């Protein structure tokens, strides 16, 4: 599904250049659940932004579903993103002025889905994440766990092939965190590819592969087997 070759990303200010990603090579297959781990500032989020086409790499090539999109226009990227990728953020990023149902429906608006279909789909997704009873509430009226479930619903409402989750449990307590991870697990079981950034090794265990990063490089990739045994492949 995703092939990254020699991807680098540098940020320039007036006189300092900071390398956030350094020669990243990574392949992600359809249906994988990948956790990206590493200390703060190691480039996890930049990686996720590049994967999600929210940011463009400084060099290297990025193939998404077989298409090289590293030189694509902003408009084309937005289009690819719209049809294939859902996002979940640590801080939920719900629009405070919209109700739960309206937040969930937002991506469908930009997909120009007819109103009746939209309502039906929103209802289904809200039920699937168990938030339908809060449909008319505003985000501020919900708990953190509930807000993140809304964010998950919004991410999956268009049926994306890939979900990018940036520390989706970071702002949640253990119980709510587990609930969200279960949701992601269920989505993955249904065939959605998931890439999740996390700090918590126990959360990473939900993934099928863990990518460790340090200083903008991939340190190691561990394939997690069901018996918690891992085989290290040093890069």
């Amino acid at each position, binding site marked *: 599904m995703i092939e990254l070759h020699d991807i680098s990303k540098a940020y320039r200010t007036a006189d300092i250049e900071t390398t956030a990603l350094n020669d990243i090579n990574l392949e992600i297959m359809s249906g994988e659940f990948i956790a990206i781990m590493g200390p703060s500032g190691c480039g996890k989020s930049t990686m996720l932004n590049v994967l999600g086409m929210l940011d463009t790499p400084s060099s290297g090539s990025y193939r998404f579903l077989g298409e090289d999109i590293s030189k694509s226009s902003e408009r084309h990227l937005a289009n690819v993103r719209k049809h294939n990728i859902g996002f979940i953020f640590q801080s939920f*990023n719900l629009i405070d002025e919209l109700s739960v149902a309206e937040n969930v429906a937002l991506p469908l608006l930009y997909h120009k889905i007819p109103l009746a279909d939209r309502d039906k789909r929103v209802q289904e997704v809200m039920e699937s994440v168990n938030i339908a009873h809060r449909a008319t509430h505003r985000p501020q009226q919900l708990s953190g766990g509930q807000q993140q479930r809304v964010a998950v619903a919004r991410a999956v409402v268009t049926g994306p092939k890939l979900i990018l989750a940036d520390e989706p449990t970071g702002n949640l307590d253990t119980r709510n965190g587990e609930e969200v991870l279960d949701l992601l697990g269920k989505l993955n079981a249904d065939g959605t590819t998931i890439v999740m950034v996390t700090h918590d090794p126990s959360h990473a265990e939900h993934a099928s592969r863990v990518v460790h990063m340090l200083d903008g490089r991939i340190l190691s990739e561990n394939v997690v087997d069901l018996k918690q045994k891992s085989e290290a492949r040093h890069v």
Partner: protein
Amino acid sequence: MFRNYLKIALRNIAGNPLFSSINILGLAIGLACCIIITVFVGYELSYDKQWTNADRIHRVTRDFYGNDLRLAPIAPPIGPLLKQDFPEIEDVTRIMDVGDVTLRKDGELIQEDNFAIADPNVFDFFNLKFIIGDPGTALARPTDLVLSQRMAKRLFGNEDPIGKSLNIMGQMDLTVTAIIEDIPDNTHMRFEALLSSAAIPMILGEDEFESWGSNNYYTYIRLPVGYNAAHLEERLPDFLIKHRGEDAAKDGALHLQPLTEIYLTSNRDAEWRVNGSYAVVYTFSAVAFVVLLIACVNFMNLTTARSTQRAKEVGIRKVVGASRRQLIMQFLGESILMSALAMLLAVAIVELTLPSFAAFLEKPLHFSLAEPESLAWLLGGTLLVGLVAGSYPAFYLSHFRPAAVLKGASEAGSSALLRRLLVVFQFATSIVLLIATGVVMAQMHYAKNVDLGYDKSRNIVTGLPFFSDLWQTYEPLRTELEAHPDIESVVFSSRVPSMQNLDGSGYVAEGEQITPDSVLGIADIKVDAHWFDHYKIKFLAGRTFRPNEVRIETPSKENPVVKGYAVLNESAARRFNWTPEEAIGKVIRQPMSRDLDLFIDREIIGVIPDIHFSSLHDKMKATVYAEPNPNYARNLSIRIAPGDPTAAIEHIEKTWARLVPDSPIDWQFLDDQFEARYRAEAKQARMFAIFSLFAVFVATLGLFGLASFTTERRTKEIGIRKVMGASVKDIILLLTADFTRLVLIANVIAWPVAYFFMQRWLGRFAYQAPFADWAWLFVASALVALAAAWITIALQAGKAARSRPVLALRYE
């Protein structure tokens, strides 16, 4: 999608009451100013457009270089001669403004205004609409009288006026032959009753129609379709030469004025009434535009300042698939919605205030939502303001990169600089308007309080009836009035101060050959012996008239040169190259006939300083003061004793009624007449002040909003600073310093701009308030702007500075 945008927009408006109310109120004030001024400007531009063939009608005017006169009315022979000499002229009509008349109806004396004498073709010429009567014959006979509906109603109530008789000025019995519709207010003309020009020989003498000296007839010509008036105008000097000889073209010129341009461009001597000007139209249009622009800038500033609050939304929308175009449309939609709400409020403000404005400006200004044209304008205005105000924020907000803004990073760099520039712009324009208002006020004050060169206080002025023997009316009046203890003195003059003096004669210094070149055209005023004393005018040299010197003979064939006397003002003495002292005892010769065979030789007995006789608009003219002449206008000045004027006025009215029974008194305080000369300007000045204050208010409103957001944004910084030991004062200084700098920069920009514009504005006055009178305004408006900024910001900053730092730090 649209519903979603609308929902978000409405919730944004409701969820941010401070931001929304500042924007909506600001835009509403700006729009209301624009609507009111558009209505006013539209009205000013509508003058005289209603007449049939208005685009083909021109008024003929005449300049006299010698007397420095630029007259709107001209002599009666010119119109018919033009028609005779230039066959392309389709028609000519003449109207003489008579103004006040005394009518006698069934023995009752009535004073009426707005009488005019017109050629019988006037109805056809201007397409005046008849209610009763026949346009073809309405003014056929000398005794015919046509009344406007309003005048007919006033004079005859519900009676049928047709065939009714009125005596005018005790001279003629007139018969009402027709009633016309009231002429609209938006014309430079002013008449409610028309007499036939056929009556002129009976009223003003058989030779009036031949007189080239009687410049009293507004003369209009109609040209063929597509005819270029300039072709005719360039042949007018030859026309003058043909009929008046070579010198006439040297001493003056005839001009053509397009009818529809008269109101806004003509400021000639003896205009029908005070005209408007393009300067006023442009000034107010500019002010309205500026107020609206300041409101739009508020919107831009506040929206971009709030961008951090909207950034997350932009990021999310982009992440879930919104294109930049869609976001731009969304934000433009929001600003158009805001503009629409502001427009609703603006219309309400206009509905409430326009009647007061109309009353204040004395113009029938109307604004109706029922007219499709108004609705179209409002709709267009709403869209335009929404787009202008919303464009920058829309482009700015929609460019946010989701990866950055969802992490909470600020993308505000470029907009912060622009916001500063916009604040500088707002304050600079506000300061310019403040200074301009101040200068206008200073000039008004100067005009009212300048030393005119004479004492105009406690004067009552009134006209003496024209159709009576001057001395037989005047002398007994004066004697009886002065007998009252509350009346100090009564004097006669052809014109009283505050009036434009349009009278003049030719003079040559004694001993010089009389040629057209040597004759100096100089203004003259006819006064009696006490006039200078009465107005407390000091002599630079010589003395006033002795009683015998104001009753002189009239030159005749038998006695072609008579002796007379004259007092000059300083400028007149200078015209003859004399100092005041040198002038005394000199003789100037005044030709009294066209053939240059009758003269008055005037001995100069005194010289007075130049005085501001009319308003400060007019330059002080060289003037010859000479004895009363029965053929000139007749006015009395009555100075009353200090204190309650009631007894004096009562005595004046009673004495008048007894001694001048055929003509009711129409008196005025001289001070009021002076006020009236500045009336239009005083009103415009006040209107200007009001709109300037709106501009400052809207700018301050914007600053308030901006300050509140800045403070909010810096809450954490304030908290940290307080933890580090900053006092409330330190915090307020910190927050005000930035804006103070901006306001100071705005001053530096505004001052030269204001100086430049106000120097040009003052150029309209012959006598201008000196710079020293208004230099302080620059400092004052800087202080006002700073005070407005400081108070606004300190209110916000103080609140933030006094809050407990822990709250601020917990904020994030």
